[in-house]
């Protein structure tokens, strides 16, 4: 029994006992009078207890007792009573939050084991990966050019300082155009042995923010700075209030970052140090407190504020972590980065090269041998999954099943992808499927017997399990989103184009991945993520 509960028992029994003083009397003629006396006595006992409690605490402080460690009060702390116990590995001064809201979609085909090195033949850099980029960026290379990893490839004409660089070395084979002559992707045929552009990194101990900023802008890592609000490539003119890095993902079949950090501890630390210069606030590290202590690479990182989080998906989403440590308010701007991006930044300093290698988890029920692969940014999807898929009715997703992008074997991975999920395309009819489903399917609803099989791993399929309807059910989104946000009302504000309400209801704190689990559970099958992006675009255009 924890202390808070013990205290509750004591206070409760004290107050309860006080009732006996008048319970004996009375012939039942006027319950009102006795009721009032009872309430009065309750208040009196409560007042005496509160007074005594305060006196004890004041006395305790005078005597120099640490009030954080030894809680002297007689009243239990309500949050203490119901919240999860802080794990042992969380040190003093580090935050800990446990979320009861959320939903884990347990899928079969989790990628495990050692990292395999896979060299695919072609890689691509896609301007379409960057939200808000003009459709025809200035491409600095032409087909046939030889590039090294880290060489400039293109830049956005609206923001010419941000250079996007090549993830690999090799020959540019094609500048592929999409609709209306927009640039769809720049495809590079990679060398067998990747050669890197030589970079002379500045000394972090002496450099100032402006110099570091132009160093980042030139060397292609600026594109890794995601800015909230809007979840876009960071605005170079704005100094972020804080920088947030989530070191774990709770998404279905997500990559385990403790594998990624192995051997890259120094680079990660260096990257974090560099980020510290870029912000006036602090670099926040979100750590996994769901199970055993996080690996040393994260836990012993210095120069950061550590916050531990425990709970179901989306506890690992950086947006949730920001909201629960230092929420975005008013005109605040924060940056978010992925662990592998931080390592890439760190390697600019430790190894003097732009190393865009990425560890990718390839998983899902349709993958014969789920595995963890080391390749480079923008790798060819077909090469990564070749011969590893079970049949031909597959949905290949660059990212997780909730917020990833649909892709094909002919396509390339996106800029920030660390995961490929493959599930079955569920385009078949099911007789009375809405009433008597034959195959098990994940759901938060109690109408499925899923609670009998808490560890069942679902195969998962892309069927919508129903048609789109108007909003009917309420409270569903809130039950899986550990944020003080009302998604349904926010969506209505977006549909109505009400800017003030959108901002007030917290649109600036959200990105698509945060609402993905809400979209999953939606009974009315609403497209929340695309609605949210519409709203974010409106807010961005509005300035």
């Amino acid at each position, binding site marked *: 029994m924890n202390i808070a509960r013990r205290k509750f028992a004591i206070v409760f029994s004290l107050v309860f006992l006080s009732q006996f003083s008048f319970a004996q009397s009375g012939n039942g003629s006027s319950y009102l009078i006795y009721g009032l006396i009872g309430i009065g006595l309750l208040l009196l006992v409560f007042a005496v207890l509160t007074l005594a409690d305060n006196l004890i605490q004041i006395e305790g402080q005078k005597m120099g007792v640490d009030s954080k460690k030894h809680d002297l009060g007689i009243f239990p702390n309500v949050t203490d009573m119901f919240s999860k116990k802080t794990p042992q590995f969380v040190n003093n001064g580090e935050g800990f939050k446990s979320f009861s809201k959320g939903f884990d979609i347990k899928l079969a085909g989790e990628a495990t084991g050692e990292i395999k090195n896979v060299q695919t033949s072609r890689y691509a850099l896609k301007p379409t990966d960057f939200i808000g980029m003009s459709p025809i960026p200035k491409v600095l290379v032409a087909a046939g050019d030889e590039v090294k990893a880290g060489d400039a490839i293109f830049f956005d004409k609206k923001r010419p300082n941000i250079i996007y660089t090549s993830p690999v070395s090799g020959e540019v084979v094609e500048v592929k155009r999409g609709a209306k002559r927009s640039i769809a992707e720049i495809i590079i045929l990679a060398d067998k042995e990747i050669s890197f552009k030589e970079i002379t990194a500045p000394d972090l101990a002496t450099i100032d923010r402006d110099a570091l900023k132009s160093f980042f802008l030139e060397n292609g890592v600026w594109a890794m700075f995601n800015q909230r609000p809007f979840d876009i490539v960071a605005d170079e003119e704005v100094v972020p209030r804080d920088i947030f890095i989530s070191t774990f993902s709770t998404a279905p079949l997500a990559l385990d970052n403790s594998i990624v950090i192995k051997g890259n501890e120094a680079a990660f630390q260096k990257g974090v140090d560099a980020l510290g210069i870029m912000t006036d606030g602090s670099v926040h590290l979100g750590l996994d407190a769901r199970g055993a202590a996080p690996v040393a690479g994260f836990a012993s990182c210095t120069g950061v504020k550590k916050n531990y989080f425990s709970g179901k998906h989306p506890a690992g989403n950086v947006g949730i972590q920001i909201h629960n440590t230092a929420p975005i308010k008013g005109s605040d701007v924060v940056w978010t980065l992925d662990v592998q991006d931080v390592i890439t930044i760190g390697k600019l300093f430790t190894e003097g090269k732009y190393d865009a290698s990425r560890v990718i988890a390839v998983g899902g029920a349709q993958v014969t041998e789920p595995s963890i692969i080391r390749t480079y940014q923008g790798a060819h999807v077909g090469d990564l999954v070749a011969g590893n898929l079970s049949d031909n009715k597959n949905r290949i997703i660059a990212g997780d*099943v909730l917020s990833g992008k649909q892709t094909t074997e002919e396509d390339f991975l996106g800029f920030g992808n660390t995961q490929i999920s493959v599930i079955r395309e569920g385009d078949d009819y099911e007789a009375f499927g809405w009433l008597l489903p034959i195959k098990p399917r994940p759901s938060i609803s109690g109408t499925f017997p899923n609670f009998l099989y808490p560890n069942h791993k679902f195969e998962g399929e892309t069927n919508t399990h129903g048609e789109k309807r108007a909003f009917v059910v309420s409270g569903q989104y809130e039950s899986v989103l550990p944020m003080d946000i*009302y998604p349904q009302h926010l969506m209505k504000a977006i549909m109505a184009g009400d800017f003030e309400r959108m901002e007030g*209801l917290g649109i600036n704190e959200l990105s698509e991945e945060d609402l993905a689990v809400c979209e999953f559970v939606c009974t009315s099958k609403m497209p929340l993520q695309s609605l949210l992006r519409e709203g974010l675009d409106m807010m961005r255009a509005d300035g």
Partner: protein
Amino acid sequence: MGLVDLLKKIEPDKKNSPFLHTLYDGFFTFAYAPNTVTKGGVHMRDGMDLKRLMVHVVLAMQLCYVFGTYNMGHQHFVAAGQYLGFIEGFHLKLVHGLIHMLPIFVVAHVVGLGIEFWFAAKKGHAIEEGFLVSGALIPLIMPPDVPLWILAVAVAFAVIIGKEAFGGTGMNIWNVALLARVFVFFAYPTTIAGDEVWVSGYNTLAEGTQASYTFAHGLFNSLFEFMGVATFQEASTHIVDGYSGATPLALAYQGGWENVTNTFSPAQMFWGTIPGSIGETSKPLIIGGALFLIITKVASWRIMLSMLIGGITMALIFNAWGATPFMEVPWYGQIYMGSFLFAMAFMATDPVTASGTNTGKWIYGFMIGFIGMIVRVLNPAYPEGWMLAILFMNTFAPLIDHYVLEANMSKRMKHA
């Protein structure tokens, strides 16, 4: 998959015959979960959809249906002083109940669904499932002898003015089923209020009034004669001396709890073998349905709990006040008299018309319990308050949500 192909072959053309196509689509999606796959956004969807949600509410009401039907027959014979045991004359009670229940059920659904289908075809969207629940609720909250044409008008009013005018399922402000009932209540008050309407099969409840049986009764009589069991006897079935047909609420209004318990034992009121609206009398079955809804997370436990708290709070205040006999009815009596529990389980929890925020739900439920109890106890014209209280709070639910959201917004903007 042969059947699917066959069904797909007979699919009517959407442009040439929109109504047929809507109808076809409605029944096809009922028989087969569609083959649509996710596009953009999430790649997997929860197994729950609106059809499944609605059908679970309907499932939760099934026992109330069975009991309500039988109880109609039971009350009919109790009024005549025959077959006083609950199981006695089982076949007669069941048949009598069915003869009254089926037309009500069929009329409510034909009218409601017909309008729903027509609007869906006109608007060119799929048939929405909202009326599944409304249509199942309406028969349960009607008096047993409600004239069918009044029922049809009420359902049409509720669906057209109450729902389609606002844009269909999910857009309505007031609970559709209650709107149908409130329509009957205000337009044809004598069919839904007073002591006379809660027993079926008699024209009045004056002493000695003979039961009036229909053609269907005669049909079953010949069957029963063939089987050699008791039959409906129009001549010998008449209202016994001193039978009033009053419900517990009417009795409580006249003479308090004592007056109620003189006529009905608490067990009778609890198990529901008393006159009343068709589906609301049996408390254990309603509580069972409510638990089913809570366990399957279909309905909000917050609203149910807060409404219970609100009702009990007001009942206790009335107990303390004690100005009229009705006020002195103990709080637990107030809970199992009348349709408090039915309103709590099935009416107040309608997610569309209730508050949308969790904080709002607590306030909304509490206020229904609180106001409904006031209407019940203080209103001499109509001793049941839940219908009016729920419609009243339906109206205010958006306002409650507005203030909850404003609080959330100001918290965020304060530090701006």
